[in-house]
């Protein structure tokens, strides 16, 4: 056996355990889900083959398109803040100050909490009458006695509440990616720019941000995909309320599968969402390549 073959075999031995589990629990369900989407399928198992009926139902389902619109709103309200705050916090955490470590830890800390914890924190803060924010606003006289802001009940405020919780929870991850990218920018570029008389602001806009472009596009792509999959915090904090006005696509898919006991249709919706995300991602990658060519 040649040396290369031995090395390859050794590498395969290390990869195999993970790959086996990945194939069983991630790759196989992808194909199984597609199979389920062509059937009437309940928690009790396969019922009937229905062909494309679930996909035709999806096209006519006003609830699916409404929830897709709601999901787009979640994406539009969280992704820009995640990008801007992520870059801002990374720049702050990258400065050579005594507080550098504290910045890095405190900015990233929310990201290690579970979604249940941050959701209950959000509810504790935003509850009317007894919530932290309500008490604070009353104490400072911003809200008068008997006045309340119903953060968890009114449509626009529901979006804002879930958006704030999501951004606070996720921004640490974005910061980490930008921080790693900032470390890669050679100091000589800044030194040369300083010698040439460039101000800090000019260095930021003409050196830092352009060199962060690849990371920015990667974070943008990751956060768009992640925001499209918003579920747990929206379910726990507002449950898609009022009514179903802020229900996301994944919440509707979950409800269809486990409340309505219709796994086939929920699988079809999952695939529709998957195709939408693939198209978005390809579009983004095409834009990115175009930018690189320029």
């Amino acid at each position, binding site marked *: 056996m040649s040396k290369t073959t031995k090395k390859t075999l050794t590498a395969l031995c290390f990869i195999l*355990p993970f790959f086996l589990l990945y194939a069983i629990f991630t790759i196989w369900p992808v194909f199984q889900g597609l199979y389920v989407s062509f059937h009437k399928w309940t*928690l*009790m198992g396969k019922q009937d083959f229905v062909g494309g009926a679930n996909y035709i139902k999806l096209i006519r389902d006003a609830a699916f398109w409404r929830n897709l619109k709601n999901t787009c709103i979640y994406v539009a309200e969280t992704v820009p803040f995640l990008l801007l705050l992520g870059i801002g916090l990374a720049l702050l955490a990258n400065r050579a100050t005594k507080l550098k470590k504290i910045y890095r830890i405190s900015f990233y800390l929310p990201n290690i909490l579970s979604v249940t914890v941050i959701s209950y924190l959000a509810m504790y803060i935003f509850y009317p009458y007894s919530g932290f924010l309500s008490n604070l606003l009353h104490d400072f006289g911003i809200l008068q006695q008997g006045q309340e802001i119903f953060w968890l009940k009114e449509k626009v405020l529901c979006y804002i509440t879930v958006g704030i919780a999501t951004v606070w929870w996720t921004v640490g991850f974005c910061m980490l990616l930008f921080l790693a990218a900032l470390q890669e920018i050679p100091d000589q570029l800044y030194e040369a720019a300083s010698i040439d008389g460039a101000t800090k602001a000019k260095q930021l806009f003409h050196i830092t941000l352009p060199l962060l472009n690849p990371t920015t596009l990667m974070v943008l792509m990751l956060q768009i995909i992640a925001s499209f999959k918003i579920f747990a915090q929206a379910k726990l904090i507002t449950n898609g309320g009022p009514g179903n*006005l802020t229900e996301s696509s994944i919440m509707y898919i979950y*409800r269809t599968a*486990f409340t*309505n006991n219709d796994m086939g249709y929920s699988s079809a919706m999952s695939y529709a969402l998957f195709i939408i995300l693939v198209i978005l991602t390809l579009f983004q990658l095409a834009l990115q390549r175009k930018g690189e060519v320029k």
Partner: protein
Amino acid sequence: MKKVKRLLTLLLSAALICALFSACTTENNSSGTSNSTGTETTDVDVNSDGTVNNPEAVQAKEGYQMFWTLFSGGDGDWMQQMVDAYNATAPAKPVQIVQCVWGDYYTKLMTAVAADAGPDIGVSHASSLPMLVDQGVVQDITSFADAANFDWNDYEPVSQNSITFDGKKYAVPLDTHAEILYYNTDLLKDAGISTESDGSVNLGSNWDEYIAFLETLKNNLPEGVYPISCTNAGDDPYRMWWSFYYQLGGSDIVAADGSCGLDQAIAQQAIEYVKYLYDQQFIAPNVEDHGTFFQAGSAALYTAGTWCVGTLASQEDLNFGCQVQAQLFDQEACWADSHLLTILTGSADPEAAFDFISFVSSKEGVTWAGSGQIPSSISIKKTSEYTALEYQPKYSAAAEIAVLPSQTPHFNQIKTSIIEQLDLCWTGEQDAAATAAALVNAITTALS
């Protein structure tokens, strides 16, 4: 040196693989025992409240039947008492109970039965039984009941209908749990309203009298105290709408032929009556937890389920009464659901399972009444032990006027859709006419 390196590499790979597989095993939250089963096992994931996340991992003791329930906390304790009482009779097959998490009970039950790993006995709501029957999760118990000479006449017609499909019976009713009225007697006294000789409060016999009663409360209660405590979204205003709809003479929301039977005009009327209570601020706005709101003395009346009586009774400084909801329109009706005891498909000994469920329903109803629910057995409600209870006899008549969920496998989907549309109306996003039309659309979609 090369051999040492090779050996180290192999050992490291083996260690990683072992670590990977050991990480895949379920973590045990308890010390290795489950207090709901009494069975020693290290695979069971038990929560701090005694509910089990993976009931299929619980091994039945030798010769025992397995019973999965969705009751925990106080209700779980009452059910454990009933199981202990049955086991004390030295039956051929005693019962072992597992308390499942309420939120995913039906999902776990159905997937377990599908995988042939389900229990012998289960609990179902009347709203979910049609789905379980349709999916073949529960067994026809008619023959077992006939063999045991079970007396079905001991149950209200509405209870019997809820467990009968095509002439066959699929469960034994355990209780009816209805939406009833609780009232703070101190607040009523402060508002100058006296109770009747039997302790009940007269809310009026029609809508106008009811509104006059609420106006009296509103004008005489202290600042910040409201006539009614109710949420403005979710189950409770839906139950109020349901009661009004059927009191107004509304037809079954699912017709006998399986199509939408909702009377849109009456549905709209019922919506308008409920909305009026919100618009006139008889109901406190935007209350998240209307139980806590009532217990804090912030409302004189509280519409909630029979299961709340225990919580209210445990509060020493709360003087309250309870009764069946008032008839304000043409018919007597109130929202209710029912807990039913079922025998699951795949049960090893269905005769033994029937022996247990019939015992619990027909003999342990007084014990179960401690949870606040109304026992389904009529004879139990006539016993001196039941009539001696402080609160329960005052609302037991709700079982006679209860309108249980429609018999369709899609009821849970219909209910979710109805609540969604009603919530839009209560919060002012949609008017009553559009909401009633949306209800028809939602029910039709669910049934298609």
